[in-house]
C-alpha cells in the first residue's frame, strides 16, 4: 500500500505539520525506519529533516519518557 505522503500527493514536508510528522515517529519520539514507515528514500530524507527542525523548535520531543 502506498504511504501517506504518496496517497495525499505531498511533495514538501513542512516541519510545522506536527500531526503529519507524528505518523513517522514512535512513542519514544524516535524516527520510524524506512522499512516500517513505507517511505521512499527521498521522502524519508525530507521527513527526517522536518522532524529535526521540529525537534529543535520544540514542536516535537527529542525523547519522550
Amino acid at each position, binding site marked *: 500500500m502506498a504511504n501517506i505522503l504518496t496517497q*495525499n500527493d*505531498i*511533495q*514538501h*514536508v*513542512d*516541519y*510545522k*505539520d506536527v*500531526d*503529519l510528522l*507524528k*505518523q513517522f515517529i514512535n512513542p519514544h519520539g524516535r524516527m520510524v525506519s524506512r522499512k516500517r514507515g513505507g517511505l521512499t528514500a527521498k521522502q524519508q530524507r525530507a521527513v527526517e529533516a522536518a522532524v529535526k*527542525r521540529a*525537534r*529543535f*523548535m*520544540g*514542536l*516535537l*520531543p*527529542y525523547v519522550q519518557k
Partner: protein
Amino acid sequence: MAEDTKVVSKDEGSEELGLRIYEVGYHVIPTVKEEDIESVVASIRTVIEKAGGSFIAEGAPALMKLSYAMTAREGDKNVDYDRGYFGWIKFESSVEASETLNETLKADRNILRHIIFRTVREETRARMKIPTLREVRRTDAIKPAPHHVEDTSIPVSEVDLDKAIETLTTD
C-alpha cells in the same frame, strides 16, 4: 526544428539575481506581553525589508506549549521556559540578508529560539486531514446505557432444585 528557447521560471530568475526563498521560525519568550508581540514581529520584518527582502507568507505568533523546556540567558542567570509564542515568516532575500537576520535574532533578548532555512515558494503545509487514532467529540456526552436488572427470580423449592440437578447429572 523548433527554436531552442530557454524557459526561465520566476524562481530561477530570482536565483540569478542572488535571491533565495527562506523561512524563519521563531519563539518569542512567554513573558512578553500579548500587545508587545506585534512590535517584536515588526522588528523582524523591518530587518528583512531593510535588506531588500520581500514577504511571501506569514504565520502569526501563538502561544504554544513546548515539547521540552528551553533555557534562555536572562541577565546573569538561566531561565527555563516551557512555552513560547511561535510564529514564522516565509520571505525572499539575498544570502547576506538572511545572515543579517540570523545575527539580529541571535542578539534579540525577546527571541527564545529561531531557525532559518531555505525552502520553496509554494505552500509546503499539508492540506490533508491527518488520521488520528481516536477522535473524541467533546460536545457529545457519553451516556451510560441504562442498566436493567429485572428481578425475574421466582421462589424455587428445594425439591425442584434437587430434581433439576439430578436430571443434569444423570445425563
